[in-house]
């Protein structure tokens, strides 16, 4: 049985704002699923519907085969949530918040151990509303982990965390996943999703524009690998442009930039240039995933909104199937 399944899930606000547009999504038991998209793509709205914070305009959402709206109580028994837009408003300490989560979940976890796991045990005696954003995020994450849930739903979990915190959270997520916990987390940060997830769904403007493994997405990308060579003297363009897999070459002063449609062509570029002039420095950029993200999402809020051409979504989904 899938952990999460949505069928034609739709949410409109007012007359014209379509936050989520007939979303069909299936998250299998035990996978780590990254839910990716720019700000305002509909990620949180989707999560809020899974948690019954907001009600769908059309379609349905199921968690563990139970209707998200009708059986929210039974669902909440089995999930751990790091919500978006939470607040520690009450005059309670971090420890008391953790104890409250453990008590409400009727869990046999030791609150101290959870506080320790997320690295705020030393500050647990302080009032949680006085915590920094990162510490609050750690506490909220710890509360989500109580009672070893079958499904972790994490909405932008790395918000406010320092690099160590992000690293640590990732390893905790991986540990829990290794024990069989399904993880569903949203992010607008590619590297984060790339580092942890088995499978990724990309949302844009309320629609799921791609769903695949990281490798699958990479393969389906038309993204270019680039190599930049800093030379002792001005290199020549000819001889490099003919290399199979090189799509464009540009020389500015002593710098040669080659864009390769086939990443493996980069090596040949370096060899060829090195045979002509002395190469001082090499800068290779293989992350076509950033570009891929931009292609899928049309640059998000900062782009012109047109979804890039050259990616056949149907193909990429079939490739993963």
């Amino acid at each position, binding site marked *: 049985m899938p952990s999460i399944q949505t069928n034609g899930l739709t949410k409109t606000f007012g007359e014209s704002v379509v936050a989520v547009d007939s979303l069909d999504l299936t998250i299998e038991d035990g996978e780590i699923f990254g839910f990716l998209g720019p700000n305002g793509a509909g990620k949180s709205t989707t999560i809020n519907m899974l948690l019954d914070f*907001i*009600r769908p305009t059309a379609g349905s959402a199921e968690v563990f085969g139970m209707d998200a709206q009708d059986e929210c*109580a039974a669902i*909440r028994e089995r*999930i751990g*949530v790091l919500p978006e837009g939470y607040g*520690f408003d*009450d005059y309670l300490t971090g420890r008391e918040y953790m104890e409250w*989560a453990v008590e409400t979940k009727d869990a046999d976890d030791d609150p101290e151990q959870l506080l320790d796991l997320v690295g705020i045990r030393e500050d647990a005696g302080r009032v949680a509303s006085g915590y920094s954003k990162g510490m609050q995020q750690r506490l909220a994450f710890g509360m989500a982990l109580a009672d070893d849930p079958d499904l972790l739903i994490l909405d932008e979990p790395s918000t406010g965390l320092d690099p160590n915190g992000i690293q640590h959270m990732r390893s905790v997520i991986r540990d829990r996943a290794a024990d069989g916990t399904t993880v569903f987390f949203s992010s607008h940060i590619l590297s984060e999703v790339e580092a942890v997830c088995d499978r990724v769904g990309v949302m844009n403007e309320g629609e799921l524009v791609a769903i695949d493994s990281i490798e699958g997405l990479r393969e389906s990308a038309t993204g270019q690998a680039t190599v930049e060579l800093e030379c002792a003297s001005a290199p020549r363009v000819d001889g490099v442009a003919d290399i199979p897999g090189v799509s464009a070459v540009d020389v500015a002063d002593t710098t040669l930039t080659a864009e390769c449609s086939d990443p493996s062509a980069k090596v040949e570029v370096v060899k060829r240039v090195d045979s002509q002039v002395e190469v001082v420095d090499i800068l290779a950029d293989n992350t076509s995933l950033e570009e891929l993200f931009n292609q899928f999402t049309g640059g998000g809020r900062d782009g012109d909104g047109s979804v890039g051409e050259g990616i056949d979504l149907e193909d990429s989904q079939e490739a993963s199937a």
Partner: protein
Amino acid sequence: MSTVTVAKKDFKAARRSKLLWAAAIVLGLIAAFVGYVSGNAPGGDAEQVRALFRVLTLLLAVLLPIVALVASYLAIAGEREGGGIKFLLSLPNTRRSVFVGKLLSRNGIVAGGVAFMYVAAISVALTRHGAFPAAVVFGTLLITLVYGSTFVSIALAMSSAAASRSRAIAGAFGTYLLLVILYVFPVVSFGDIARWVHTTLLGADANPDLYNAVQYTSPYLAYRKAVNLVLPADMRQIVFYSSLPEDVSYGSPAANEVLPLYLQDEFAPVVLAFWLVVPLLIGYALFERADLE
């Protein structure tokens, strides 16, 4: 089970509010002051103490709605605006357990304030008069707690309907204006408005019973008349004078009995029950349907 956990956490946080403690102490001092200045009533010690608690209820009639509204108007709206609702509903709680838990906890807070006043008033009564008319003390206490609960219900309903702090504040102000001020303020009170509509606009003959019935829809008047139920006949108040025949004196038991049933003191619990239950049902229905973002 989860209802209790919600209430416990809410109550725990409230107990740490310095503002609430300050309010409780002020209430206690007010009650002690009332106990100190009252005491010129005719009769023996027990009479003095009955008079004291009667004056206390007069004060509570206007004060307690404020206490209950202030204590409860943010119960749900504050959680929604501050994001606490995200944790409440991520954990194994339902909206019902959150709503009922908040109801219990805020009632507990208001009851705590009332307890402060009663302890202060009882202490003064015992030291000054050495009398303890239990029927009046516990009778008014019970009715006062119910009265406080009606405004907790109303405030909770307001809080459920309001998605933000500022709207909840407006709702609390509006409630007090509508349910207390507009029933007792001369000329613009609901009874006077009903009279004006009935006689001037509709050109009908004056019908005091009707206007008094309109007045009686207020929890404020219902409380004052419910208090009559536990007071001796000569201490009763608000007997709807305009509905009384000429030959019945205000202080006699007959002053209540000659009224139509719907104007009698015995009808007060019905009015209070309405304000206790109906706002809760509306508030819960609104909260159950709301999109919580």
